[in-house]
């Protein structure tokens, strides 16, 4: 960059199809070139690479957890069929009057009392791994065990899966709305943007809560499987406006570019124009927002559980946010956070710190790695940082 030298302002992105002629020979596809450039800049950014590595590890964990031989519901049946106490609130095995009858995924503390800080492992039953992460316990009067390690693994599934589903759907809807709004302009633009403004004025958390609170009563969402769909639908309703706004802004700029004019001049009509030229060049800012949201959504889920809102079908659900949030209430059997802490004894706090720390740490790592990636993407895709 040389100061004072007059240069034409850099175009916002490489035009996806500058000249629509038949390919002859080997001309590089500009879209692939753009992706290569983005990857090159990402590679140079240490934090982004760290983020990518951690995310890849999480994805591997998720895949690994998917292939675990014992699925969630089957565990419940196993416990029930082996004559233990009926599974309550998603626990796997129960402790009743002095005897612990662990199931296949249940660890036992040495003294049998659930509030020991450093639980050890019973290797004879360890099928889901040796990590001494302990267990989540309910109130001391009715202790039940729940494997934190299993929860961490499964949580990866949930966080990634649900986030991707929500973000993908939301981005799709937002892309459509934003593209239509930006392209047609006029009163369509005004009306759609007003709607987007309205949606964006309601704070996200509250909006999600009220949507889910209302929808959960509907009969269509009662079955367990549909609860997941409910979650996704609720979040998508709240999230699509962000994408719509971003896309519309970008479409407004792309619309004025020369190659769009050229395409119009060569006869491209409305739909073809939008599909082939405008949308591919408007999606770039969405990627940054999408990666940010993939990180935010599990945090939001955790916040919802923390607020006491029954997001998941059972209380002890193998999801990081859920585990971290519920650990706060679990030990004390107290109804408020303050009460829970007031009964804290020095050193052996009734927030079993391990129940909170590990899921919380996973959540933190996940979110921060996503943030690294998103930040790297933002820097890589920013056309103003001319290099």
């Amino acid at each position, binding site marked *: *960059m*040389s*100061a*004072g*030298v*007059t240069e034409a302002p850099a175009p916002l992105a490489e035009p996806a199809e500058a000249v629509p002629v038949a390919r002859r020979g080997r001309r590089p596809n500009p879209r692939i070139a753009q992706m290569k450039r983005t990857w090159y800049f990402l590679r140079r950014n240490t934090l982004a690479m760290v983020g990518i590595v951690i995310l890849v590890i999480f994805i591997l964990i998720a895949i690994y957890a998917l292939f675990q031989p014992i699925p969630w519901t089957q565990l419940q049946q196993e416990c029930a069929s082996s004559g233990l106490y009926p599974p309550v609130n998603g626990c796997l095995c129960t402790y009743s009057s002095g005897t612990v009858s662990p199931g296949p995924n249940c660890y036992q503390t040495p003294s049998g009392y659930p509030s020991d800080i450093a639980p050890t492992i019973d290797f004879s039953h360890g099928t889901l791994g040796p990590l001494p992460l302990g267990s989540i316990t309910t109130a001391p009067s009715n202790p039940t065990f729940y494997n934190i390690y299993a929860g961490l693994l499964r949580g990866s599934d949930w966080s990634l899966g649900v986030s991707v589903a929500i973000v993908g759907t939301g981005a799709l809807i937002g892309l459509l709305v934003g593209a239509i709004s930006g392209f047609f302009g006029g009163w369509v633009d005004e009306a759609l943007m007003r709607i987007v403004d309205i949606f964006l004025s309601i704070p996200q958390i509250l909006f999600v809560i009220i949507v889910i609170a209302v929808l959960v009563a509907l009969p269509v969402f009662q079955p367990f499987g549909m609860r997941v769909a409910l979650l996704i639908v609720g979040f998508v309703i709240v999230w699509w406006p962000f994408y719509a706004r971003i896309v519309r802004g970008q479409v407004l700029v792309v619309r004025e570019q020369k190659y769009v004019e050229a395409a119009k001049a060569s006869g491209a009509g409305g739909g073809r124009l939008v599909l082939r030229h405008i949308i591919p060049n408007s999606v770039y800012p969405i990627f940054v927002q999408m990666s940010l949201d993939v990180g935010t959504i599990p945090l939001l889920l955790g916040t919802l559980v923390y607020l006491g809102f029954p997001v998941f079908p059972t209380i002890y659900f193998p999801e990081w946010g859920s585990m971290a949030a519920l650990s706060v209430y679990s030990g004390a059997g107290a109804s408020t956070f303050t009460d829970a802490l007031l009964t804290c004894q020095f050193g052996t706090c009734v927030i079993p710190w391990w129940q909170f720390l590990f899921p919380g740490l996973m959540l933190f790592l996940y979110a921060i790695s996503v943030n690294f990636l998103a930040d790297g993407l933002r820097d890589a895709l920013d056309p103003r940082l001319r*290099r």
Partner: protein
Amino acid sequence: MSAVSQPLRDASPLPTEASFPLSAPAPTTPEPIPATTLSSPVVLDVRDLKTYFFTYDGVVLALDGVSFKVRRGETLGLVGETGCGKSVTAFSVTRLIPDPPGRVISGKVLFRGIDLLWGLDAEAKIKINPKTGRAKVRRSFRRIKAGLERMSAVRGRGISMIFQEPTQAMNPVFSVADQISEALILHQGTHLVDEMMSATPDAPEVLPAMEALVDVTRAGGDPDTARRAAAKVAEAVHLPSFGTQSFYLVRDSELSSEDMVRRLQRGLRRTYLSRMERRYLRYRRKRMVIEDELHDLYLSEMREGRVDRRQRRILRGRRTRLRLGGFYYGVWGIRGRIQRPLRDEAFWRTVGRLEEVSIANPVQVAKGYPHELSGGMLQRVMITMALSVEPTILIADEPTTALDVTIQAQILELMRELKTRIGTAILLITHDLAVIAEVADRVCVMYAGQIVETARARDLYTHPLHPYTQGLLASIPNLERPDKKLSSIPGSVPDLIHPPEGCRFHPRCPYAMPVCKEVRPPTTVEGAEHTVACHLYKGTVAVE
């Protein structure tokens, strides 16, 4: 005959409290500015200036040994294609090169005996990786900051600049008057304050003078008479800016005489200073004096190359103490109101200056914001701002490129006129040969970061020596011979990261010889004030 300049007869101090023949509404005849001759002192002496930019793709050798001189009062044109480094030269002289990518590597820039590049080498250590061609620059931020502080002593006062895009060059959130006042207060503040404090609004001559002005205005007639009457009011009050103010207060007004006088009296109120206001003004004046002393210290440092740490510490300490003491005015929350007299005074002076560049309604322009004005108007405003403090040299970086031709003519005319009045030297950077022909006394032609030819304007157009210059002139379409084929210089501007060896023009030169590919041609003298850097010519090598 060589380009060796005579030693400067005096390294005269920069004007800190100059006289202002411009501030009177009526144009007085200034003292005649002597015409520039060979014996005029050189105000800007650039020797072998090298500036590089360190980018991911390698090191851009933007300027590779640029040398020229500007004499007092002359207009030197710097011509070249886009990308040849003209603007970089201008910014290198005033050290405005943005630092992360670029740095001035070496060279000497002497402005009236002051080495502007002093301390530059110590700011950074540069290591170039021969394999990748990239460089690693280790900067000392402390020294860079110190260097910037030194430059602020010169900028705006000795050297002013105007830029290419006038619509972007001003801050959009401050009014025009605010921005020009900033420059005025910064550089002529003590004078402003002195005049304000010595105003005599209570003098017995004031009221009769105001009534006379009102009579003249109501009687109609030409504005000059009104201006003279306003000048008399200013004399009575001993405040020249009040002359401007009173002129505009009663202009275009259908009020009755009594109302007009009342208006004038209301306007006079700003010259009555309360005790707090006087105290504040004294405080500001003290700060201005300290800043001036610091600047003088910096200038002497740069001139002699010696650092007087003790004096610097003393002055800075005094300045800090003053600044801390200034919180007193802020604490009471009256700072906004207390500054009003100073701001008003600067405002009316600004209006006066805007008048001189023939802006029709200076009061509205001054009150307004930059986005409300057109490009041509803004460029006038910029020129006002740059020339209001009577700099020794004005660097104009493509001032007319963004304007259309009619406005261009006006601006050039304005610059010429102001130059005659004040005697500023102008370094005019442009790619437009026509502009050069209009205004410049001497011309330097630049190509790819080097100066290839320097000559008097007339000589350049009649006897261009360098092949590049010849090509440029030949490519101008000739209206007399419309069927002649348009000629252009073959090839394109070289990549400055890997410039050609030897003479940088040799790939495109029709007369290239084997030696051109290897050896960079020295600058030789080929006539009266005519130097060229080409192997075709074998004159005496210019002694720097």
